[in-house]
């Protein structure tokens, strides 16, 4: 299991380097961030044992932290990304 995740992570790294050399127009950034998110999720779920966490509170803390991070980035971008004058 650990080795499968390990090889998936290495594959993801190779893939993200390869994808960066392609001209995907505006999709370069979403593809790179998507691969990074898949890799981070694999590390959290399997290497950090969130998947098998016996304590539900742990899962709640993880989801809560991500929620507030997305709140920070998302709400900031509703301002900065929607300024047609700048």
């Amino acid at each position, binding site marked *: 299991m650990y080795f499968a995740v390990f090889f998936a992570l290495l594959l993801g790294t190779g893939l993200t*380097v390869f994808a960066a*050399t392609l001209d995907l127009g505006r999709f370069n950034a979403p593809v790179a961030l998507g691969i990074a998110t898949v890799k981070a999720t694999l590390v959290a779920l399997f290497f950090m044992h969130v998947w098998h*966490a016996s*304590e539900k509170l*742990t899962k709640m803390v993880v989801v809560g932290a991500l929620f507030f991070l997305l709140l920070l980035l998302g709400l900031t971008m509703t301002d900065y990304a929607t300024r047609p004058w700048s």
Partner: protein
Amino acid sequence: MPDSTVLGLHHEEEHHPELLHHFADAEQQRDASSLGMWVFLATEIMFFGGLFCAYLIYRRWYFGDFAAASKTINMGYGATNTAVLICSSLTVVLAVWAAQTARRTLLIASLVVTMLLGLTFLGIKGIEYREKFVEHHVPGASFSFQNEPIPGHPGQYANPSHAQIFFSLYFVMTGLHALHMIIGLGIFTWLLTMAWKGRFTPEYNTPVEIGGLYWHFVDIVWIYLFPLLYLIDRHP
């Protein structure tokens, strides 16, 4: 008469020396430690989150300058370091597994290899920083970023002061990450001495697990830093 049964309880009951008295059992103690670590990691997520937010704002504003600056960083170093950290995450889970299954030799070997990989990461980072100093790409008085073409816009050159913002973010984000690596190496040195003394058993190995969580978190931060800083616009 004093309640001697209550007072004598701790002496009568057999329990693991590492089990603190306010926990019902070893599992509850481990879950509490792990939860505490995750709460700490949540604060770390917000800590790095602020930098990622700043990065996001400036990247949108000065995308061309950021792409030009990103292209001058050595992608090979970044990719190698990503692979090094992924390997170290594997040795960390092996260490946790070895501690849980009482494999002392594997535990010590995994911890040592993890630390060597951590040092490799910092070494490569050092070479990379040195190149930035040589090229005068370090923000400050001697910063210079002249005639660097903006990818995809022939004849246009990056604004040096905007590129300087990219390099400021690059040094703060990778520098903070490297500081976390150094702290991680300190934690792992301590784990190694504990493992050497044979303190970890299948009943008690929480420090290995908690230290592992920290190491994996630092790995995750790098997983995002690599594409964001090194791979903004790499196509020819």
